[in-house]
């Protein structure tokens, strides 16, 4: 019996986790299978005689997820992290409990005079005890929130105050003022009406809630690296004068020769010494069209041999391989991504010096008028006490939570809440080509022929016997036109040229230009058309019957229908649009011009894609990148906002902050609009948060004193607290109503 823990990727909801449990339970010998969704973990107990570790992984893969066995070491660091999260949650709950109790205790008697409090601590009869109880309830809250004080005062003294500074200042002022008043109670019983312990505690508690919500909105993007690493195979076939051995890839040195066969992954970068075939280099170019490889061709570790077999002399190992460089790049880019200074911090940063200034000025003016230093101190402290809005910490996270939910309902998955704050700032939008603005599948676009049906019939009959994507495209077209194919005999496939066979004793050939030239078949009849199709970067299949040209079929990747309107909308909004692809220049320019891109960059490697992103960032522009493939990972990570399109690889999804689940490119425009609505909502929330407290500042400063003898009171503080919190949360919910406009 074995018990193992697997890390599962791709589970997003309870239904997904039930699916994983269900399919693994179906395996023979599995006793128990449990999924922990928030931790992305599967714990499974099984009889290894009946089911193997590979069986489990395969079953999970078939269900649409990916699984890796968790190693011991990773388990330890993960449990340490989990404990940290648990502790934070516990402190948050305790803060809320103490603050809540304090609030009920202090406000209870003021709002409901008959509020039952034991006589010994009642405000009327034992005011000193009343105050002391409040102090006791306040201290735990402030201790649990001590990071706000540490960060806040430190930022303040470094002259770059933020939200924490405002909290620290105001909460600290409330505490000190209340303690002083507590000691004054002995002499002056009315001092008991000047206690602001609840202002101090509640502001810390609420900001803690806000910070906790913010952390929850930030999903870790580390998984992209593990997925990239899994692209390289663990073992390879080493070939030397003694024979062939399967060895771990780590043991292979440069200069060694390895054998790669059809269907296997190429282990390391190298050069082919013998043999030929085709490779799928989509991880590098984004194109899954097989690339012809022969003696002398370079191959890349991590790509797949899709045909033939060859011997490769290894040129790079370990850290020097192309794949390792891509991984390092993504890692570096991820680490360099600095957390953005949210709107709330920026506002607080400006507010703090203003608040201190107002307090000082008010204090000085009153000193000039009254000459009473303690009165001036009272004014100064009152301004600081009322100056910090309790709901400030809630402004951003509430908007992001609602915004994220709104996006999800429209098929826009926001993996990192911060993305909602920055997306609307995008000035440059970069699109990958294959699979992003194009369907990623080959389809027949043009047919040059006197007899279209005969051409398709002959072509399809031959192509049915080939695995190439071009063959599939031709046969799909034939099926669409309801053309029947015929029996083929003597089928032959010539690498690098094409295929041939006999239909009813006539020799039919389908291949590239080289094949026609080689066999001496005239193609000048369609010379002009052929030339313009070639300029458009399309792939041409020449079909001949008995060594005479029957026709030409042009095959290309088709542009997604909604791409046109998406690019148009982006350009109308004043954004610069760029097409970036690892594919050849001709196709890129053809598609780029069709869609009206401002700039087209082609034939670039994955790290070069990221360099293009960097180039614009160095100009000070905010860059949004949209991609779908493994080769987009570095660029997606480097971009300010990475946007993966749902049909794309898991690695692209892991590298991006936003995922467009529907395969619809116009969702990029929607995502930008969503971000705009969200940031507007955050600004509105901040307004409501600050509004009531700011209105109360003049009262605290003593503006109403000359006429009405009114100064700040805890009641005013409480009213401001509740109104601001209420309005912030309600306004955040209002964001939901924007659904129609999205």
């Amino acid at each position: 019996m074995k018990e193992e823990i697997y890390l599962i990727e791709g589970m997003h909801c309870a239904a997904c986790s039930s699916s994983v449990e269900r399919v693994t339970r179906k395996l023979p010998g599995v006793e128990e299978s449990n999924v922990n969704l928030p931790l992305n973990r599967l714990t499974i107990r099984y009889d290894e005689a009946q089911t193997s570790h590979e069986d489990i992984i395969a079953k999970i893969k078939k269900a649409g997820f990916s699984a890796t066995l968790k190693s011991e070491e990773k388990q330890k660091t993960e449990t340490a992290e989990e404990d940290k999260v648990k502790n934070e949650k516990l402190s948050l709950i305790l803060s809320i409990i103490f603050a809540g109790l304090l609030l009920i205790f202090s406000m209870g008697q003021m709002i409901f005079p008959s509020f039952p409090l034991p006589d010994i601590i009642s405000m009327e009869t034992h005011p000193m005890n009343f105050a002391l109880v409040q102090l006791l309830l306040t201290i735990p809250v402030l201790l649990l929130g001590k990071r706000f004080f540490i960060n806040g005062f430190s930022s303040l003294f470094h002259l770059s105050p933020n939200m924490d500074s405002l909290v620290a200042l105001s909460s600290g002022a409330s505490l000190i003022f209340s303690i002083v008043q507590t000691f004054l109670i002995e002499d002056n019983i009315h001092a008991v009406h000047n206690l602001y312990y609840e202002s101090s505690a509640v502001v810390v508690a609420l900001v803690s809630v806000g910070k906790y919500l913010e952390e929850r909105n930030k999903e870790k993007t580390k998984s992209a690296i593990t997925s990239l690493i899994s692209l390289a195979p663990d073992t390879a076939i080493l070939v030397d004068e003694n024979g062939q051995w399967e060895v771990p890839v780590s043991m292979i040195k440069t200069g060694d020769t390895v054998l790669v066969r059809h269907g296997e992954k190429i282990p390391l970068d190298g050069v082919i010494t013998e043999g030929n075939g085709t490779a799928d280099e989509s991880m590098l170019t984004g194109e899954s069209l097989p690339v012809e490889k022969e003696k002398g061709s370079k191959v890349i570790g991590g790509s797949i041999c899709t045909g033939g077999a060859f011997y490769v002399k290894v040129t790079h190992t370990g850290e020097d391989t192309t794949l390792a460089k891509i991984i390092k790049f993504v890692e570096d880019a991820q680490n360099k991504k600095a957390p953005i200074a949210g709107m709330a911090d920026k506002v607080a940063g400006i507010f703090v010096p203003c608040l201190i200034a107002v307090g000082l000025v008010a204090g000085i003016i009153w000193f000039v008028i009254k000459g009473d230093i303690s009165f001036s101190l009272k004014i100064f402290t009152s301004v600081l006490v009322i100056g910090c809005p309790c709901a400030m910490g809630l402004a951003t996270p509430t908007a992001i939570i609602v915004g994220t939910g709104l996006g999800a309902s429209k098929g826009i998955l926001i993996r990192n809440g911060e993305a909602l704050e920055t997306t609307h700032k995008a000035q440059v939008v970069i699109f990958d080509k294959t699979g992003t603005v194009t369907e990623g599948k080959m389809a027949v676009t043009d047919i040059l022929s006197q007899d279209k049906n005969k051409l398709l019939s002959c072509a399809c009959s031959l192509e049915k016997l080939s695995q190439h994507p071009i063959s599939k495209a031709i046969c799909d077209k034939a099926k669409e036109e309801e053309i029947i194919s015929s029996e083929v005999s003597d089928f032959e496939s010539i690498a690098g040229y094409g295929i041939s066979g006999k239909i009813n004793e006539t020799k039919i050939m389908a291949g590239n230009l080289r094949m026609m030239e080689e066999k001496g078949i005239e193609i000048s009849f369609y010379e002009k058309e052929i030339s313009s199709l070639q300029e458009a970067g399309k792939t041409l299949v020449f079909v001949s019957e008995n060594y005479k040209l029957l026709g030409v079929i042009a095959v290309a990747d088709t542009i997604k229908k909604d791409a046109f309107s998406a690019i148009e909308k982006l350009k109308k909004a004043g954004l610069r649009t760029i097409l970036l692809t690892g594919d050849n220049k001709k196709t890129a320019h053809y598609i780029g011009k069709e869609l009206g891109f401002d700039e087209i960059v082609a034939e670039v490697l994955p790290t070069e894609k990221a360099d293009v992103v960097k180039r614009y960032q160095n100009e000070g522009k905010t860059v949004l990148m949209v991609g779908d493939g493994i080769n987009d990972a570095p660029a997606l990570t480097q971009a300010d906002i990475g946007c993966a399109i749902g049909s794309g690889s898991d690695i692209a999804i892991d590298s991006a902050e936003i995922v467009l689940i529907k395969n619809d490119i116009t969702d990029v425009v929607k995502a930008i609009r969503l971000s705009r609505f969200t940031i507007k909502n955050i600004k509105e929330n901040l307004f409501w948060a600050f509004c009531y407290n700011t209105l109360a500042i003049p009262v605290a400063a003593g503006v109403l004193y000359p006429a009405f003898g009114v100064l700040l009171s805890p009641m005013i503080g409480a009213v401001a607290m509740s109104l601001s919190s209420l309005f912030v949360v309600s306004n955040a919910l209002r964001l939901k109503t924007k659904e129609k406009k999205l």
Partner: protein
Amino acid sequence: MTNIKVEGMHCPMCVKRISEALENAGIKAEVNLETKTVSVADTDVIKAKEEIEDLGFEV
């Protein structure tokens, strides 16, 4: 066309898994998250049900 009722479809990602799996199996299907149904041609029903069960849903 037959409608297959699928239990446990909660989120857009579930929809994506189902439609991708059916597409890879060569079955044309329409997946509806709201009604929790998958519509396929009558001839594909048995295969579709198999695929969906393999994903871990209940039909």
